[in-house]
């Protein structure tokens, strides 16, 4: 232990690879019955040799001429509708609204004479989480999941989440520069008349970058007591106003569970003494012409439940930036030719906006703030308020 602590080190490492297949398809998505679902196909990006120039590394992409189909063992055929957009990743949309749950399904992908397919698979029915729990401490908010499953149902769970959150800019602008005057000669501004600046509130979206996997195979009950799957800093803007998380729960097959578990382990290896050796992971999509061809991804046949949880700003510990330290004070004095500083127009062109800061001892002062401090759209969000969003600031 002492050795590991005192003298062990981790260094960046790179190695030239020379056994990279020309084209390895990646199938991403599941056959989710009960509605529309999307399955995409893309190609692995090989690491290649360090000697390869960027020009030589031509991206390998799937063909737009490809065709993806899902077959049901009752004879139904579900064609995939290729979505427009995307070059490296081509998505196919399926309508499984009427697909029966007691049948078997298989996916077939055809491209340039090659056929890739899965075997026939049963449907894994998704349970519905009982509750999305919220806990917090001084620094973080923890979102967990509780579930009491049917003992006869799948004991292998996989879920992802999507987040939507409302946040606001650091400062609400109270004044706007009056461009009707020469701002190189004089500072002139007008007061905000609307109750809320249009770029003060925004909505952001994000999604999990990897699935959460849980198995209850070793438990006495098919129960997830509480599995924390999302941790948010209380200083994050995500929870400053209103936050919503949609958990997409899937009951998956045992093989699918261990595929994804190994997939995550392979992609987040620690390299420690006891870390399992990473191994080549093939999915359940196989080339019919060349079964040894590397094909990646695991397509399961599942149903999906969505559980939503809203969290208001009660847990937020966000504070606006300390303007006295970080915002340059507006110091333009046109009557003093010796005065240093930029003109209002120059501040504006550099991306700053005037912000009125109330100061108890000296009265309100105007400071220059970066534009992103008063414009929430510059922090990743947009003005697309979800239709069912519960808050309004109009």
């Amino acid at each position, binding site marked *: *232990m*002492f*050795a*590991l*602590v005192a*003298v*062990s*080190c*981790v*260094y960046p*490492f*790179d*190695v030239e*690879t020379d*056994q*990279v297949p020309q084209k390895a398809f990646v199938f*991403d998505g599941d056959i989710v019955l009960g509605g529309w679902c999307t399955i995409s196909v*893309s*190609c*692995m*990006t*090989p*690491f290649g040799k360090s000697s390869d120039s960027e020009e030589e590394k031509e991206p390998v992409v799937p063909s737009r001429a490809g065709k993806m189909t899902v077959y049901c063992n009752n004879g139904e055929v579900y064609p995939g509708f290729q979505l427009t957009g995307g070059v490296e*990743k081509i998505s196919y949309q399926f309508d499984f609204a009427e697909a029966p749950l007691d049948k078997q399904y298989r996916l077939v992908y055809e491209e340039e004479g090659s056929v890739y397919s899965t075997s026939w698979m049963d449907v894994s029915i998704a349970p519905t989480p009982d509750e999305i729990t919220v806990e917090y401490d001084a620094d973080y908010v923890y979102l967990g999941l509780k579930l009491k499953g049917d003992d006869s149902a799948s004991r292998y769970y996989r879920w*992802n989440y999507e987040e939507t959150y409302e946040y606001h800019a650091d400062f609400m602008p109270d004044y706007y520069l009056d461009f009707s005057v020469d701002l190189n000669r004089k500072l002139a501004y007008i007061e905000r008349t609307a109750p809320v600046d249009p770029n003060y509130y925004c909505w952001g979206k994000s999604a*999990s*970058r*990897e*699935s959460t996997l849980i198995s209850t195979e*070793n*438990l*006495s*009950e098919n*129960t997830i*007591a*509480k599995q924390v799957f999302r941790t948010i800093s209380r200083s994050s803007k995500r929870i400053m106003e209103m936050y919503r998380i949609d958990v997409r729960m899937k009951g998956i097959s045992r093989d699918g569970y261990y595929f994804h*578990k190994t*997939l995550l382990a*392979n*992609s*987040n*290896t*620690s*390299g*420690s*003494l*006891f*870390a*399992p*050796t*990473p*191994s*080549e*992971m*093939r999915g359940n999509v*196989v080339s019919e012409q060349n*079964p*040894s061809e590397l094909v*990646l*991804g695991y397509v399961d046949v599942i149903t999906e439940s969505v559980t939503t949880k809203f969290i208001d700003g009660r847990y937020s510990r966000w504070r606006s930036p300390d303007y006295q330290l970080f915002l340059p004070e507006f110091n333009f004095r046109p009557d003093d030719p010796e005065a240093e500083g930029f003109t209002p127009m120059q501040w504006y062109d550099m991306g700053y906006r005037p912000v009125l800061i109330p100061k108890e001892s000296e009265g309100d002062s105007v400071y220059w703030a970066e534009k992103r401090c008063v414009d929430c759209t510059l922090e990743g969000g947009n003005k697309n308020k979800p239709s069912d969003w519960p808050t309004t600031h109009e």
Partner: protein
Amino acid sequence: MKMKWVITVLLAVPLALHAQEVKPVKDGDESLSVLYRGRLASSFTFRYNGTYYVDPEGFKAGEVMYNGKLYSGVETNLDAYQQLLCVKPKGDYAPLTPERDQVAWFTRGDQLFVNLRYLGFEQASEGFFEVIHDGETPVVKQVMKYLESNPGDKNGEVIGYYADDYSSGVITYFRYAPKTWFIGEDGSLTRLKSKRDVAKRFKNRKSEIREYVKNMNLEDVSNDVYVPLVMSMLDPSRPDSGMIHKRMNQWHSGGNIGSEPTIPVKAPAGSGRDLPAGYFDEVKESAERLSDNNISVTYQNKLYIIGTRQSGASRATISGTVTDAENGEPLPGVVVFDDRTSTYARTNSSGRYSITLPVGENYLNFNETSKEDLHINIQLDGSGGLDVVMSERITALKPAVVSAESMANHRTTEMGIEKVSMKTISKIPTAFGEGDILKAVMTLPGVKSVGEASGGFNVRGGASDQNLILFNGNTIYNPTHMFGIFSSFNPDIVENVELYKSSIPAEYGGRISSVLSVKSKEGNPEKVTGTLGIGLLTSRFHIEGPLSRGKTTFILGGRMTYSDWILKRLPEESNYHGGKAGFGDANLGITHKFDESNSLRLSAYWAKDRFAFSEGEDFNYSNLDVSLAWKHDFEDPGHNLRVSASYDGFVNTFDIYQYMNDYSVTTNINQGNLKAVIRKPLSDAHVLSYGAEGVFYALDPGIMKPLNDSSLVAPRSLDREYAVEAAAFASDTYTISEKLSFEAGLRLSGFMSASKRRFYGIPELRLSGKYSPKENISLKAGFNTLRQYIHLISNTSAISPMDTWKLSDASIKPTDGYQAALGGYWTSLDTGIDFSLETYWKNMYNYLDYKSGAELTMNDNLAEALVPVKGKAYGVEFMIKKTTGKLNGWASYTYSRTFLREMTDRGVATINGGDWYQAPYDKPHDLKVALNYAFTHRYSISLNLDYSTGRPVTIPIGSYLYDGGYRLAYSERNAYRIPDYFRLDAAINIDPGHYLKALTHSSITIGVYNLTGRKNPYSVYYTTDGGFVPNGYMVSVFATQIPYINFNLIF
């Protein structure tokens, strides 16, 4: 308590022999000498003229009253160090020391020395006293010398020092002790402390004495001058009528002295005053004949006669025990061979050997790596015994000689056997300075590991679970502590280490690659000794000694760590803050000798490891091994029996803490073992070994339990597995001629799985042969088949606490191994350097690899997660080795390959598409150098160099977006390699000085591990850090120089 081995070193050169009774001397057999027997006179080498004899004048003619017989015309001298009479036969023979207790008196020139205790003066000390004056008031003095290191200004005259210590800085002197004087008074003797005491004996003659001293100018003279002169004046009686001579003369009539002699000795019938005519002239006929029990005879250049000549007998057998002069313990693995006939034998675990030779003159060699070679002339008249005591090798400072073991290797069919002494092991630098057996083993050719700080090792393409690791016959399932940083064996209690990697004896089975046999000491039968070592991370101790002198010995050792305090002091941002890691182990051995033929040994070993680096995980594993072994030697030489019963327990537990899901998983192995081995020489050409072995297994592959009441984890246990592995085995060594010999062994092994009923059985062959066209050249070939019924299931590179063991059953077949090997060996007669070239080919079947992504923990259908693979391994091992001289050590280069291939076709899931793939430990080029250069007997430096090709790994060959983030696509299994490994270590060793009277001694090793600071990769890995862009990293376990100092206290 004194340090036994220091004495040994000082007495090292003669390499004393102890001979045991061959045949009782017939009373009245005038052809036999009863005088010329006894311990070989010491033969210390002095740089100057110092001597342990009473004076430097050498031997002088005299008489000896020995065992009731008076011998005249004998060259005599007195060993003043050991207080022994030395007699020198005529001819080019070394002096002997007849048993002191049977010497009444002897003369040397005009000096008369008497054994006062023998003559009935019980108050006298042991040894010989020179009679200075005899009469009514006799005076005797005893001249003693003793050894002392760096004595300073003490009494006594420095007369020399031990040569081999000259350059060590510690000079050991032979010094005169103050002489002991006795003066007679009323029929007894009292101490004479000063000149004044003489006057006290003659109170009424004080003035006369004073005047005599004055007239003779004796005021300032020494006692040596004063006493004889004054006494001759005071007591002018005739010497031969004095008190001493009266006692001496009684022996001339053949009677005893007094009614109760101090040492009762029966004078043999036919005692005469003179030796038979021509006794000293007919050296070969009358040279040392070994006769009496417990009489020690020694000398390398003397001819010893064993047995009684019998008409018609062309061959006779010599047998005996070889013991360590340091502690009296038997020495296993000592090579015994005869130069004339090239006959070879090796001592067994009890130190017993037996060798059959043609009657007549032979030249026996005894060799053990760490001991001084011993060469003895033998006149073999009939079967008899010869016990040998070997001393620590100190030839490091002497010119290189051809080692007897080197030559012996040309005479045996054995190949692929590596033996490493603890002395050698202690010199090999390790990461933390503590002598490490496994690390030393890994410096040998053909032995590899997947990386530093890894628990297992790989022998000739075998997996880490394919090595049978035995500790005093017990099976050790996890041979390392702290993830492989320390080996499980306390170096202080280990006697020797043997690794069989090619010719595996038929008595061993159950693993297909190698047998590593580690044996502990039996305990010092003479006195209590021990060691104590204290270090930054670990401390250890051992103590050994007699429980019942001559009968029962014990040895107790222990180690422990206290590394938690370091972990607590690590910064909180480190992942290890507050973690815990440590181990402890204990060894106990008790050996009881019922008689010369029967002994019983109890061995126990316990070890426990625990570590936790995060709040969510806790790992523990432990070993418990107990064995009882009975050894019996039959009357016919070389015929012996070993019976042992043992229990081996191994428990592996890890605890996982998750909200309401806290649980532990335990796997364990309980193994009982019964084994009997008989070795019996059938004739001069055949030696048969046979026996049987039974192993009972009860194995829990997984027990899951909730750790608390709030845990929802359901208790669950995988089915306990029961099985019996039984074997009967026999092997015969057939020596056709000096040049050609074979060994054939057969092991019938069977395995019954009780839980999933299935029986497996197979005959295993163990064949080897050698052809030796010259005494220093040999060619050997061997072929082994082996079978393994227990398997380590792992998906990690190194042995991990998450691993589990699995027995063969209906679903999992035994692993079979076949190895053919060919070797050529040459010993340079000029330099003593050994060269060897061995090549091998090995095939394996039904070795278990895991499916990609397989879940191996708590899998009740584990067979489904595994795939049988076949393997092929081949290689060439070249080694140059020098075991003597100032510079000794070895260098080896190995080119080897190991490939695996899945045996079943699982379609797309078949590992690497069903092609051959590199084993995780396939490292083609392997260069190892282990050198030690001894500047002096105390100071030496050690260098260790290790280079090997990087091991195969499975690495990402690309990335792809999947499930919301970047994922990694991996290459085929083990398709790439990590960078090559190179490490150089150096150490300075300071061995203890020879402070004979010191109660404790210390040794210090100062070294640097990874001297060049090379950042050797242990593993490489890639991570997408939660779905983002992938990055590659390399883990280096010992990424910089690691200086260390190791201090050991020996008492």
